[in-house]
């Protein structure tokens, strides 16, 4: 639902970056997101495509890449990436299922651009 505002922010950042480097053509934008970022990739893509066209960047490809979730166990401090990509995951160090901290997995950022 909030993907439209995210896509608007994304386009704003892209335009800034293109202007700064004096580029006029965008081929590809790579966005990375964590499993806990609550972003729906298909909705973000849809919003991006329509906004890219409005901004004279039609045809640019949005590449979406999921980063791994990294949790830290509150009991044994083990760092791990659970296969189920969920906050409720069993710690491989001590077997604890609950109370993990999120080290990374909430992020959502424009990683790189391919432009000319």
């Amino acid at each position: 639902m909030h993907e439209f505002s995210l896509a608007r922010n994304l386009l704003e950042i892209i335009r800034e970056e293109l202007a700064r480097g004096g580029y006029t053509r965008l081929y590809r934008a790579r966005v990375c997101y964590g499993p806990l970022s609550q972003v729906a990739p298909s909705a973000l893509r849809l919003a991006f495509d329509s906004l890219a066209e409005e901004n004279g960047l039609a045809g640019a490809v949005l590449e979406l890449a999921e980063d791994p979730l990294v949790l830290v166990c509150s009991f044994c401090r083990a760092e791990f990436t659970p296969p189920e990509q969920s906050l409720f995951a069993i710690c491989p160090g001590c077997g604890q299922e609950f109370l993990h901290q999120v080290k990374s997995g909430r992020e959502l950022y424009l990683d790189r651009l391919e432009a000319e």
Partner: protein
Amino acid sequence: MEIEVGRSLLEGNERRAAELVGIFREAGVLALNLISSPGAGKTSLLERTLKDLAPELRMAVIEGDLQTDNDARRVAASGARVEQINTYGGCHLDAAQIHEVLPRFDLRGTDILFIENVGNLVCPVEFHCGEDHKVALLSVAEGDDKPEKYPLLFHLASVLLLNKIDLLPYVDFDPLRAERFAKAANQGLRVLPVSCRGEGQGLAAWYDWLREALRDKRR
């Protein structure tokens, strides 16, 4: 050409939210962001709180709604200062919208600013509005699996109000299960069962939480 960027899609909101944090700190205002599904009882909670604490605290409200000013009018009946933000389809409030209405408040003459977000368990969580705490509400009519399904809100909230406990006899809701998952997502989470109906069961604990949060803020 490959261009390395590394900029968050939320950076604009984060920047504006950080400004709000500074404004609230300067004015000594405790800002609370109320987040829940539609109908969990945010406005009802505010109506009770504004009425019951009016003698001791100066409170103001920002009402976020898709449309209508129904909630703002309900809350204004208590005499509190209230400003409406209509998002017209927007599923959350953001820091820029808060900035826009803030000049209409007397922040120096305010102890607590409540921000009632748009009813939604997902989107408002991503947009910091400068608040000191997120306050999560979950009503017992929604099912006890919500913390398990939507862990991020519970992970980030400081307090969870389990509302409508007067309905517990009529619904299939296990408060312990809801609390177990909510606390699994967040060790420091306070869970307060309340009802905004009748006697207002449990509300005294919520009021104590507010007083303590205000004290901490001004320490």
